[in-house]
C-alpha cells in the first residue's frame, strides 16, 4: 500500500516536537470551540506545545484523520503518540490523569 505523502510531513511534526496539537486556527485565535478548549487545558496544565493549523493546510487536515485513524480535529500528540481528541483530553484533565500522563512521558510542566 503506497503511503499518503502528507504522512511524512505529519510524522516529522510529531517526531520533532514532544507535544503537538493539530487544531483549527492558532492558540491565540482558535477557529473552533473544541480546539480552543484543548488549548486552554494545555495552557492551564503548563505544557509547551507546537500547534499546527489544519485550516491553513488542507492536505494535513485530511491526512491527519487517516494518519491517526481519528475522524475529528483537534488531535493531541505526545512523544509521537496519539493522546486523544477534545473529549479525551478534557476527561483526562478533569481526573488529573493528563498531568500524570505528561509526567510519565517526560514532558516538563511549568508551574502555574
Amino acid at each position, binding site marked *: 500500500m503506497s503511503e499518503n505523502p502528507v504522512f511524512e510531513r505529519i510524522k516529522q511534526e510529531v517526531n520533532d516536537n514532544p507535544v503537538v496539537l493539530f487544531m483549527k486556527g492558532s492558540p491565540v485565535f482558535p477557529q473552533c470551540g473544541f480546539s480552543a478548549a484543548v488549548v486552554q487545558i494545555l495552557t492551564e496544565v503548563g505544557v509547551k506545545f507546537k500547534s499546527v493549523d489544519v485550516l491553513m493546510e488542507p492536505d494535513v487536515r485530511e491526512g491527519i484523520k487517516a494518519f491517526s485513524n481519528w475522524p475529528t480535529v483537534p488531535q493531541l500528540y505526545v512523544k509521537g503518540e496519539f493522546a*486523544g481528541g477534545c473529549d479525551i483530553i478534557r476527561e483526562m484533565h478533569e481526573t488529573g490523569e493528563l498531568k500524570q500522563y505528561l509526567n510519565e512521558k517526560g514532558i516538563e510542566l511549568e508551574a502555574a
Partner: protein
Amino acid sequence: MTLTPVKDTIQAKLEAGLSPESIEIVDESDLHAGHAGAREGGESHFRVAVVSGEFAGKSRIERQRLVYALLAAEMAGPVHALSLTTLAPGESTK
C-alpha cells in the same frame, strides 16, 4: 418522515453496534449556529453519552474509535462534531 433523521440514524446504529445499557443523544447544533460546519436545520453537532459492555477493558481512544467507526458515514456527511462520553457499565465519569 422524522424531524431528526440524523439523530435517529445515530441512535439506531449505536444501538445495533453496541447494545448499550443506556444512550443519550443531544443535538447541540444551536450552540454552534453560524460557525463553520453548522448546517441549516441543525443536526451537525451532537453530544452522545453511551454506556455499553462493549467498552469494558478498552482505552478511551479505542472506545471512541469504535463509535466513530459505527458512525463513519455520518461523520463523513452531515455530522461536524460529536462530543462523546463512553462508559462501561458500573463506571462513572468522575
